[in-house]
């Protein structure tokens, strides 16, 4: 595992990453179950398999940095600091949800944690993120704005317009494409002409690279210096992260467009949690027993989050009249 040689990360951070990935995995598993139990309805896009990216990137950030994403963002929101309780409650449409039950599965927000959504229109978060980058520069701050996008979002006009503005005006936006190879059911290679999505950056002379998004250490090692440089130079950066989602596009997707073998290959040989666990054990940084314990911790946390969401009341129906306009 290349990362090994690269940085001997302190154990604490490694353990934190491990715990976080377990939390994300278990959280989404429970969300999927809650959906099948009809605790909530609508859409439900799970991030299972893509944990290394969320955790690796988050670990390279500081609190004041901003983040926007698409609809597959339950765990990214938690990573940014929103309590699992608040995300679960939002999924259940409850008043203790991070948007008081008004946003829902695709629209997580937290002003306090600078998580600016949770967006449902593919690619449309790119101009928004560019606006955050603009505001950062407008105030001469040195934060960065993370903009997560799906692979298929790189076919959207708004995405290109945002890339061009960020590159032209030196706005500190880190565009991260989570290339899980499919946009809903369509292999990305059938809807674009390039084999690698980082080529999108060539149209704007934007700095770019790709990274193995299944390995949390690789992601962390890769993103950390990128972010540090962005704080200094305030230029945008385009990162293609190669990853994979284990579940269907949404809970209702049977996933017949890909082979069982393809999915299993990732699960058996490239699973992010498995990879980090192996690294911890091989390097005597943790025992399998410890890992198991941490995973159980995660399960408990998630259980607690669900219990909280179960108990949380619905918002009053009359609240539907609020938040249309501010005074």
């Amino acid at each position, binding site marked *: 595992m290349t990362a090994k040689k690269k940085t001997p990360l302190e154990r604490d951070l490694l353990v934190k990453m491990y715990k976080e990935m377990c939390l994300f995995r278990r959280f989404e598993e429970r969300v999927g179950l809650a959906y099948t139990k009809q605790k909530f309805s*609508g859409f439900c896009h799970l991030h299972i398999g893509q944990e290394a990216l969320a955790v690796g990137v988050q670990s390279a950030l500081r609190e004041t940095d901003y983040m926007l994403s698409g609809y597959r963002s339950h765990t990214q929101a938690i990573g940014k600091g929103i309590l699992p309780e608040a995300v679960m409650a939002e999924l259940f*449409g409850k008043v203790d949800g991070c948007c008081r039950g008004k*946003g829902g599965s695709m629209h997580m927000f937290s002003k306090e944690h600078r998580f600016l959504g949770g967006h449902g229109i593919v690619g449309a978060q790119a101009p928004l993120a560019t606006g955050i980058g603009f505001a950062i520069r407008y105030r001469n701050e040195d934060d960065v704005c993370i903009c997560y996008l799906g692979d298929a979002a790189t076919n959207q006009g708004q995405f290109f317009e945002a890339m061009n503005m960020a590159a032209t005006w030196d706005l500190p936006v880190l565009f991260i494409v989570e290339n899980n190879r499919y946009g809903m059911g369509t292999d990305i290679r059938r809807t674009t002409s390039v084999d690698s999505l980082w080529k999108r950056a060539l149209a704007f002379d934007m700095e770019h690279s790709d990274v193995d998004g299944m390995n949390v250490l690789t992601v962390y090692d890769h993103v950390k210096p990128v972010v540090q440089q962005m704080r200094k130079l305030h230029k945008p950066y385009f990162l293609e992260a190669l990853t994979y989602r284990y579940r269907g596009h949404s809970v209702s997707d049977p996933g017949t467009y890909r082979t069982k073998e393809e999915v299993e290959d990732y699960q058996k040989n490239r699973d992010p949690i498995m990879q980090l666990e192996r690294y911890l054990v091989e390097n005597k940084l943790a025992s399998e027993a410890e890992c198991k314990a941490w995973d159980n911790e995660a399960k408990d946390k998630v259980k607690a989050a669900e219990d909280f969401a179960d108990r949380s009341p619905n918002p009053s129906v009359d609240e539907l009249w609020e938040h*249309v306009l501010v005074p």
Partner: protein
Amino acid sequence: MAILTFREALGQAMAEEMERDPNVFLMGEEVGLYNGAYKVSKGLLDRFGPKRVWDSPISEAGFAGLGVGAAMVGTRPIIEFMTWNFGIQALDQIVNHAAKMLYMSGGQFNVPIVFRGPNGAAHMLGAQHSQAYEPMITNIPGLKVVTCSTPYDGKGLLKAAIRDNNPVLFLESEMMYGLKGEVPEEEYIIPLGVGDIKREGKDVTIIAWNKVIHKVLEAADALAKEGISVEVLDPRTLQPLDEDLIFASVRKTHRVIIVEEAWSFGSVGAQIADRIQKECFDELDAPVARVCNEFVPMPYNEAQEERVLPSLDRIVAAAKAALYL
């Protein structure tokens, strides 16, 4: 007659028209290999092959515009929007190009194209996935706008839309795709611009279209039990409107309710109300009443969403108010 789901009826309409005319092709996100996000295009790729059924990138403006260009030179595209919430990414191509091309070119280039997809709220999809767009897209000359409330209407109207030589915007509903209804084995076409009386009545006319009409029919049953006879009118085509049918019904009942699962401000309902008060001024025994979505973005919470949409109670109450009961 066969019993089909709405999605099957719409799929049949496309299949029959693709069979009939080799210039008809289907393009949209996930319409091919995935058989459609809502399975309306199920089986079409297998049956007609990749030259007739195209999985598009997530580029609504792009593939809508591709359709318009292709339609200018003799093909007849069916462009599927996964939902109309995404269709507005392509509004410029629809409004500035599909609708205006024939006029700008002095009559040289008509644009035989259908833009279709589900419109309006489904269930707990939140603000960005629940908007009803007919209030916006019916304001444009050069476009026809069609809705449907039964598998029978859906098939007959979609076939007419595909054969129409003008741009047609076709509005479906996620929640109705599973709805079953009778559909004749033999071919039939329902002409655009012709409304339909879904239930005859004499005391009050309720005008509605698309999914909400089923709530209106429920309300009519409930009101019937109280001795109130409701006429339910589905214009089916919203642009142009079948005003004759509407005015005739008003002249019969003298009372009108318009029910829309859309925002009220400047909506199709507002237009119908205006036309009625203008043309049937002395026929009205009560002001035209309207029941619409509450004027807020769609909340995710289930009870709130239900409260935003027109309810049985609100429809019944409006009907009674019109009768001063």
